[in-house]
């Protein structure tokens, strides 16, 4: 157990954590405010990844700009989210959660096939933006610059989102909506617009996460299903509805995984499911969640 090994595992664990946080943050926001567990969040992530690849390949002749592609992907998925929320989701708000869950699952099925139809089934890859190529030596191990970037973006979003929720008037209304939607409506706030706004932000985050993942992961069919379970675990551990909870949940997930690999090399599969089960048994509302009945 050398310092460089520990440093390496900590840094790789934190990279994992921050990527998951990028994705899970949107999921957590939507659940926290709207009480909707959005299965299709993984699909938004995947569409964001495909969109980023598409924009990069369009921009190829003029020098592919990754950052434009990433923002375009986020924007594209935000538009998709707006359409989904306005046309479909809002009709199901008063109903039992089951119907909302099934709606989002239907979207998983549909969006998966839309992606397959548009981009085929081959695995795709996007190059790292040249400015973030290479790595820095840290404590005997190397930290890739792109990973460092993600590790900064993650907390930036957390802090930004957290500030937004606690300081701004929109944030106050969102928190009020989470507590008591009807009362907020009775007080004259446009809850519908609030929800749409929330969903758009969440979709943007998902699309952006998908775009930002493309330099380090391949874009393949099935990445939507693969990521959503991980995002659920993170949100559950941290606390459904707690934004900072999701952040720490992601950190715990990432570190559990990276040190679990050292301790039980062939059981990385179990470590995180067990983690989720244990948290749900011992503290069902997550580490930072408020007890919600």
């Amino acid at each position, binding site marked *: 157990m050398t310092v460089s090994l520990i440093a390496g595992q900590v840094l790789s664990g934190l990279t994992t954590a921050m990527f998951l946080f990028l994705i899970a943050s949107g999921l957590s926001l939507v659940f926290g405010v709207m009480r909707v567990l959005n299965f299709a969040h993984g699909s938004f992530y995947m569409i964001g990844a495909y969109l980023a690849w598409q924009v990069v390949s369009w921009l190829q002749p003029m020098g592919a700009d990754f950052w434009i592609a990433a923002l375009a992907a986020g924007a594209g998925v935000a538009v998709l989210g707006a359409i989904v929320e306005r046309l479909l989701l809002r009709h199901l708000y008063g109903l039992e959660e089951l119907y909302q869950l099934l709606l989002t699952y239907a979207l998983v099925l*549909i969006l998966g*096939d839309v992606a397959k139809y548009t981009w085929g089934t081959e695995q795709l890859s996007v190059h790292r933006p040249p400015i973030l190529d290479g790595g820095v030596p840290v404590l005997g191990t190397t930290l890739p610059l792109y990973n460092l970037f993600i590790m900064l973006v993650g907390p930036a979003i957390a802090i930004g989102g957290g500030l937004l929720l606690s300081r701004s008037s929109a944030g106050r209304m969102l928190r009020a909506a989470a507590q008591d939607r009807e009362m907020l409506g009775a007080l004259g706030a446009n809850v519908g617009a609030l929800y749409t706004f929330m969903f758009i932000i969440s979709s943007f985050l998902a699309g952006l996460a998908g775009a930002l993942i493309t330099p380090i992961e391949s874009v393949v069919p099935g990445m939507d299903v693969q990521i959503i379970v991980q995002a659920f675990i993170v949100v*559950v551990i941290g606390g459904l509805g707690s934004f900072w909870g999701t952040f720490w949940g992601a950190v715990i997930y990432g570190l559990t995984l990276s040190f679990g690999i050292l301790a039980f090399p062939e*059981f990385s599969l179990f470590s995180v499911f067990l983690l989720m089960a244990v948290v749900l*048994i011992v503290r069902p509302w997550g580490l930072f969640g408020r007890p919600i009945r």
Partner: protein
Amino acid sequence: MSVPLTRTLVRPAAPPARRVPWTLLIFLLLLPLPWIGSRYDVFLMNQIMIDALFAVSLNLLLGTTGLVSFGHVAYFGVGAYVCGILMKTCGVPFIIAFPAAGLGAAFFSLVFGYFCVRLTKIYFAMLTLAFSQIVWAVCFKWDAVTGGDQGVADVPFPDMHWMDAVPGLGELSQNSKFYVLTLILVAVSIAAIGQITRSPFGRMLTAIRDNRERAAFIGLNVRAFELSAFVVAGGFAGLSGALYGIFTRGVFPDYVYWPQSAQVMIMTILGGMNYFWGPAIGALVLDWLNQEITNYTQYWPFVLGSILLVLLFALPGGVLGGLARLGGALRRWTARDA
């Protein structure tokens, strides 16, 4: 345009005198299939029956008790593996392996359910999902017992020689004999679940579904009832899994992967979760659609998703709910003319 949800949730109780013995009727209807239908019809119906039992068992939780379980495949899978491993690896006869599958599944539902029923709503659903993924992970990794990712292939048929003694059954093929066996077992199981649903125990469950707090206030041990429902549902799911393993001639970890939970839930809701036979109808429709549509297109998930959307927006009561509304509208229309 859409009917308020409350109206679809209330189901008028049928006075006992008028109750039609549906299970018996359907049994008699399906029994002649090996003689009058094609070989493929027999395969398809066999799959539908097994899925129907699985969906009806889920509906004991979903429609009757109001518990949204996203991990019901775990018990289906446990049943399939117990039966498959006992029959293939240990050479145990079906007559022992089958009930063992149900008991094994019931045992796991007891253990997992104990933790799950302490939670409600979304947390309950997430914990059921977590447990089912753990079961999947175990099935995937435990090479020595479950065969790992390759599963248990070549599960044998049960010993069906006793059928030769029954006139007419002797000349059927193995697959057709298994169809008859499945029909009998599924019919008995569904009848049993029906009995449970209509019993006082079942009525307690609907009370819990309608208003959990009130049920607790009037003195029901809500958790105990929910756990019992969980165990019963899990046990029957295990039986359906056992049959499925034999039907498919193999048991694989894909049976326990979480989208399968979504699939059976869709079946249940497609048929109408407020009707006892709804899930069975849902299984029929979904399996039939699956095999029809996959002949023409690779994009079955798109079709399934679209069907689900239509269901959620236009037909929340499922097929049977829609038929009931149609029937009600027809009655009102004819009554007006009179």
